[in-house]
């Protein structure tokens, strides 16, 4: 497990996302309306859709391919769909706004 500096909060639009790749895995960072930053594996459990491109509603993201709804805190797909993706711990330095993700 390593803690990695990936950027600043201001690099991500509110209700938007940015991605990065670590060990061949693409991770999506989301910034919610209340400023919270969350990191999940950028792969919908259904057909691998890029969640980073989806619409963010509250704490959930809608997959752009078939509208699966994934909770960004838990990585769990909402009913009636079933599935789960990896989530990663995120820390934001309140002074500098730097984002650290533990992978």
């Amino acid at each position, binding site marked *: 497990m390593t803690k990695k500096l*990936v*950027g600043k909060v201001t*690099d*991500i*639009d*509110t*209700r*938007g996302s*940015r*991605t*990065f*790749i670590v060990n061949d895995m693409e991770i999506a*960072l989301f910034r919610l*309306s209340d*400023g919270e930053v969350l990191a999940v594996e950028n792969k919908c459990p259904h*057909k691998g*859709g*890029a969640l980073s*491109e*989806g*619409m*963010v*509603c*509250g704490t959930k993201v*809608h997959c*752009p*391919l*078939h*509208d699966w*709804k994934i909770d960004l805190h838990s990585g769990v797909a909402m*009913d*009636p*769909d079933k599935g789960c993706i990896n989530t990663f711990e995120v820390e934001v330095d309140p002074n500098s706004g730097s984002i650290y993700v533990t992978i």
Partner: protein
Amino acid sequence: MTAARKKLVLVGNGMAGVRMIEHLLKLNPEGYEITIFGSEPYPNYNRIMLSSVLAGGAKMNEIIINDLEWYHSQGIKLHMGHTVISIDSERRKVYSDKGIVAPYDELILATGSNPFMLSIPGADKEGVIAFRDIKDCQMMQKTAESFKKAIVIGAGLLGLEAARGLLHLGMEVTVVHIHDYIMERQLDEAASIMLRRELEAQGMRFLLHKQSEAILGKKRVKGLLFTDGSTADADLIVMAVGIKPNVELAKKSGVQINRGIIVNDYMETNIPGIFALGECAEHRGIAYGLVAPLYEQGAVLAKRLAGVKVEGYTGSVTSTKLKVSGVDVFSAGQFAEPAGSRSLRYQDEIEGVYKKLVIQDDVLIGAVLFGDTGDGAGLFSIIKNKESVKGREKELLLGISADVLSSTQGNRLEAMPDDEIICGCNGVSKGTIAEAIGSGGCNSVGQIKACTKASASCGGCKPLVEGLLQLYAGDSVTVVKEGICGCTTLNRDEIVSEIKRMKLMTVKEVMNVLEWGQEEGCAKCRPSLNYYLGMLWPEDYVDEKESRYTNERYHANIQKDGTYSVVPRIYGGVTSPSELKKIAEVAEKFDVPMVKFTGGQRLDLLGVKKEDLPKMWEELDMPSGHAYGKTLRTVKTCVGSTFCRFGTQDSISMGITLEKQFERLNTPGKVKLAVSGCPRNCAEATIKDFGVVAIDGGWELHIGGNGGVHVRATDLLCVVKTEDEVVEWASAFLQYYREEAGWNERTAHWVERVGVDSIKKALESREERLALKGRIETVLSRTTDPWKQIINESELRKNFETIT
């Protein structure tokens, strides 16, 4: 450029004032330096949600509308916990109780109202409160921890909501009312009695026809004495007998008042530079205590301050709803049957449903609903529109019965094998749906959708799902009024009319005011609200890109592997060798795996990596083809009279003219056009949203065609003679579609739904066509090419790159 900003001071940090400021910032962000004073130590919160907080439905921090970060980011100076104590209208300055002096050019008084407290002996005892702000809410919560008995004086809207909250907190609650029946200002006696019974079943007790004389107890309240000599015990007394406009500050400062601060149609008081709005204001003799009127007032004032032309405020028709769990009550307009009116009633004591409509001269003037308030918003809009309801009175009273499916379809569905797929998008079989209805207990289409995903995507199989529901659930089917998505029960027309009425300006505001079930909505309602707001306020609304679908945010089509496809604009399908060369070179340079002609005669570069998109657009240096949006896609053309021996007119130049005219137009669904040069119709114009077919000496105009899932040939709209007329009719048709259709509703469905005759009728007068054309031109004049914009703005371009 840096003309000094005018100073705007707002007294009152509540819903009316801050909402007006939000509106003003959108209309004229640079115009004012804004200072806000608020007596309460909180940022702007949603006061109507206080009853939900008390009833346990919402947390305190969830009802904040604008947090402190918002004030900061808008450059607003906020003095929380400061009460303005005087105004010097000569020198244009206000003074706060904590010694702050703020000069102003324009001053807005939005001081709201105070609860009306009965001035009976003992009213100053500990444990006697109102129900008005967060402080009162907290006091009730605290009292419930150590005391048992509560009395609420007043069985109006507010009193009953307070009483329900106190019940939730575990107190024994008695509601005292001076009148014989409760909520008499909103309900007639029949509805009132049904409501009382329901509330009694929830544990509330009522003492009706009782007038309070004195509050008993030494230091803390012990009980209440009535004028008839009887008493009731109480550890807490909540007075909810009404509100009075807070006019103290205005009165002291020489502003003219009556019951509230007197304002004209532009919210101006008698003193220049001082305005008032919301619950503290009195307009044409009325001081409103509801949210809708104050939003309407705010919209007028914001425009006035922004220097935008605006018609004055002329007053509001209001409706009320009781926010008490398990009880649905709705009331609007004049429910008390004034002389000369007729009324229709429906009363079902078993189901607990009561409906009453009051009609005068064939116009609906009032409605009371109890138990089933689903029709409330619809009835309210009929009351406001003052339209004639002649001949459909019963339909309005009883609601429109759901389409009963024919028995032949029932038989066919019954015979269908279990493994047959009903929903092709999500692969849901008949058996799965039957099981969801049977053992799953689903008894509405919405539940089946939530449970199995059937009809959750394109919706094409919805009639079959309804049929299965009828077949397997039979009598236990509940017809649930379906809103535009699961977040609301309001349909498209209701939402659009509420946005217009309250001049709602943002997606968030719509959700807030119309009480959305999900705080930030879903992938269905967000894009539709974004569309409706843009359609209604083309000049003021700022498009919300985060509420757009992926393709429209990245201006390219997302493919299943996360790559994108790029379609440059090629007007009328006509290109040149040099343009082709450029496209070929760019395709080679970026290793585009496939180049393909689209169905609309354009070139599609498929399989492009997201990070390459801006660079590709830059090198192509061509406008975006909008092949990804709910917008004008292409105008397909045939060769026409330019080369073809049969061509009667120049279809190519007609096609190019139309494509240039409507390029970048936002529409409810995607829009495709085609122009054929002769009736042989080589451009297949009769399966397009708007098709033009040249004939000798004129043009046939066709509408509502579709070559997609459900193929539909167009209906003939009319025949015209000149090219200008083609543009005029196309403009009028497209704008009428933009204004009337639901989001995501293609013209084919829309034309079928409303009927081609209604469209012909709407476009019949030249005056109306030109008005529609004028409106579409306003919209079109404000569009920009998204590709160019992204190339030029690093803030937008960053989203195409990885973060590290």
